[in-house]
């Protein structure tokens, strides 16, 4: 097993990876940008290395800085988390070239699956059905293809994934407008303007299968997850198992996923994403060659720590268990807490999370990226934490998650908690009858009305009374909070900045 692992990420996923490293007795090294000085992920790791300024492209996305930090700290492996460099084949290669282990698939596997066209071919060859589509940089050719296959279509970055920058187009005009924005975004986010389009399956559900491969042609699946509750193609709530699969389709899709992973001799943890059409057919969407945001729901129903499994595979080249050794019991549901103002078009929010209380009951797990007095900055993804509830049945898990969300308090930064609380109380969610477009099509209007209701008079009275009895409530608490944080966490701050070797002056 590794002695020391550098986590090339930030926020909740860096903290979550550190927890498994701590448990395994492997030392953990955080990286951080100037904007993340003192952030939670640097506090929970054994060491932390500065890797550059706030802008992600100069810090978390800068492979050279990350690898220099790994070398400087004496790490023997790098865990990329998700996002940032996790699906960057050149980074995986550079890590290996530096004599370190990349905890993830091979660079070739990342490249093949990152190229959505190649991935579709591999899936097709492994016998996984694919959705009709077309790709390229020539907008005119894409428009012709869309006209041929019929609308609606969906536009995706060829090197993208995770739903970022995806857009639906219901006619040619929308497609043209959307292509331009998507290409610009793809260029800025992935350094390649290539996009592709696929026929948009309407009223479909998102089903994905977690796999682990040993890199030598053997793979197992850890059952499916359902991530149908999405807003603008961004997953909001995920669960396992899926309500929508019958036993035959479950067998079909999990076996197809294993076939695909075995066909490419997949190494490590990966996810085969599929769409379940209204008439019960499954279509390959893409394969994500990394840990997923929603991996905890799989962990809770199987009892498997996926990060530990990643480390074990990376260290030994062997699967830590056989297929028959992977149980499935109960139900788990996850809700993503974002710093977004749901009352104002889900605009990202920034600020200091003055007072945070995460729920902590039995069977509730919180993968958190911030605690009280931590900053939420403009520079990175606004996801603050994931709240995951387990229960013997879906109903029990859902009730528990609702209770946990009610018990969550994030004061100081506006979050999507009111949205999550309302969403999970919707009768359609309780029944499980929705599709990937349902939130936007049917839920958001009613929710917007709800958010426009005035606050109760008593809330205004409380704000006024708090101010009357503590006039300096605003300024003084902020100052006291910052001082407290500095005193408790950063007693040596007065000594000046700690200089990180290897980054120049």
């Amino acid at each position, binding site marked *: 097993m590794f002695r020391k692992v550098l986590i090339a990420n930030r926020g909740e996923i860096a903290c979550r990876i550190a927890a498994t490293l701590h448990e395994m007795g492997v030392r953990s090294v955080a990286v951080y940008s100037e904007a993340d000085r003192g952030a939670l992920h640097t506090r929970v790791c054994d060491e932390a290395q500065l890797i550059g300024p706030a802008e992600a492209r100069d810090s978390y996305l800068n492979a050279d800085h990350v690898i220099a930090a790994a070398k400087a700290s004496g790490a023997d492996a790098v865990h990329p988390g998700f996002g940032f460099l996790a699906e960057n084949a050149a980074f995986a290669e550079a890590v290996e070239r530096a004599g370190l282990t990349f905890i993830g698939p091979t660079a070739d596997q990342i490249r093949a699956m990152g190229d959505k066209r190649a991935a579709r071919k591999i899936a097709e060859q492994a016998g996984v059905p694919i959705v009709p589509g077309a790709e390229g940089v020539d907008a005119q050719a894409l428009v012709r293809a869309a006209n041929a296959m019929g609308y609606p279509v969906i536009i995706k970055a060829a090197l993208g994934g995770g739903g*970022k920058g995806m857009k639906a187009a219901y006619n040619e005009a929308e497609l043209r407008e959307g292509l331009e*924005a998507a290409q*610009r*975004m793809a260029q*800025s*986010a992935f350094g390649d303007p290539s996009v592709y389009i696929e026929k948009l399956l309407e009223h479909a559900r998102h089903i994905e299968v977690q796999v682990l491969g040993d890199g030598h042609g053997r793979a197992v699946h850890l059952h499916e997850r359902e991530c149908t509750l999405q807003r603008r193609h961004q997953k909001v709530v995920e669960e396992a198992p899926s309500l929508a699969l019958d036993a035959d389709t479950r067998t079909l899709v999990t076996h197809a996923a294993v076939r695909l992973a075995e066909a490419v001799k997949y190494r490590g943890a990966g996810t085969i994403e599929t769409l379940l059409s209204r008439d019960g057919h499954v279509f390959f969407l893409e394969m994500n060659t990394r840990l997923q945001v929603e991996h905890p729901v799989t962990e809770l129903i199987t009892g498997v720590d996926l990060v530990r499994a990643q480390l074990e595979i990376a260290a030994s080249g062997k699967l830590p268990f056989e297929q028959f050794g992977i149980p499935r019991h109960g139900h788990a549901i996850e809700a993503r807490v974002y710093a977004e103002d749901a*009352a*104002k*078009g889900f*605009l*990202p*929010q*920034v*600020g*200091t999370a*003055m*007072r945070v209380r995460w729920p902590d009951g039995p069977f509730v797990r919180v993968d958190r990226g911030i605690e009280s007095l931590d900053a939420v900055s*403009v*520079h*990175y*993804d*606004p996801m603050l934490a994931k709240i995951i509830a387990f229960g013997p049945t879906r109903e029990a898990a859902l009730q528990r998650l609702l209770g946990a969300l*009610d*018990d969550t*308090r994030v*004061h*100081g*930064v*506006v979050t999507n*908690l*009111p949205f999550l609380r309302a969403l999970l109380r919707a009768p359609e969610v309780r029944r499980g009858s929705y599709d990937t477009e349902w939130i936007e099509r049917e839920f958001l209007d009613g929710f917007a009305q709800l*958010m*426009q209701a*005035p*606050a*109760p*008079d*008593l*809330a*205004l*009275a*409380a*704000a*006024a*009374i*708090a*101010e*009357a*009895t503590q006039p300096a*409530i*605003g300024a003084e*608490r*902020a100052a006291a909070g910052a001082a407290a944080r500095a005193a408790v966490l950063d007693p040596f701050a007065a000594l000046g900045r700690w200089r990180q070797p290897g980054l120049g002056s």
Partner: protein
Amino acid sequence: MKSLWRDGERTREVELTALGPGHWRVSVDGAEFEVRSETMPDGKLRLTSEAGVTVADVTAAATRRFVRLGTLDFVLEREADGRRRAAGGAHGSGLEAPMPGVVTKVLVVVGDEVTKGQPLLALEAMKMEHMIRAPRAGRVKSVSASPGIMVQAGATLVELEDAAG
């Protein structure tokens, strides 16, 4: 003691009159009721009104107040005393940056006539692109943004004047 609070799109007025220690007459937009308040050791407020007992937890972050009443959260914004913003002003009209971010595209120049809903500029923040559109028809009076600059929330990016003017 009067105070003004922004509650979503509304501005609301609270008048607080102390009737005794921890005993208040409250008027919210003219609706009057009495409240008794106790501050608990952990800083929460225990409010007793005709409707019963409610525990409120108020956190201040600059001018914002995060108010938890039972299991419900509300965000109110304290407005400067005595200033009640006129409706239809620049604020909230879509011409200010709705969040901090980087301007990626400016689609209009001074003097352009624009129609309601026409894209004026694009802002990127937190990996997402947001299009700023004209809230009404008019003529572009000024543009204070250029591609690549970082802007703070609330910064005025474009000013419009009536096309007739």
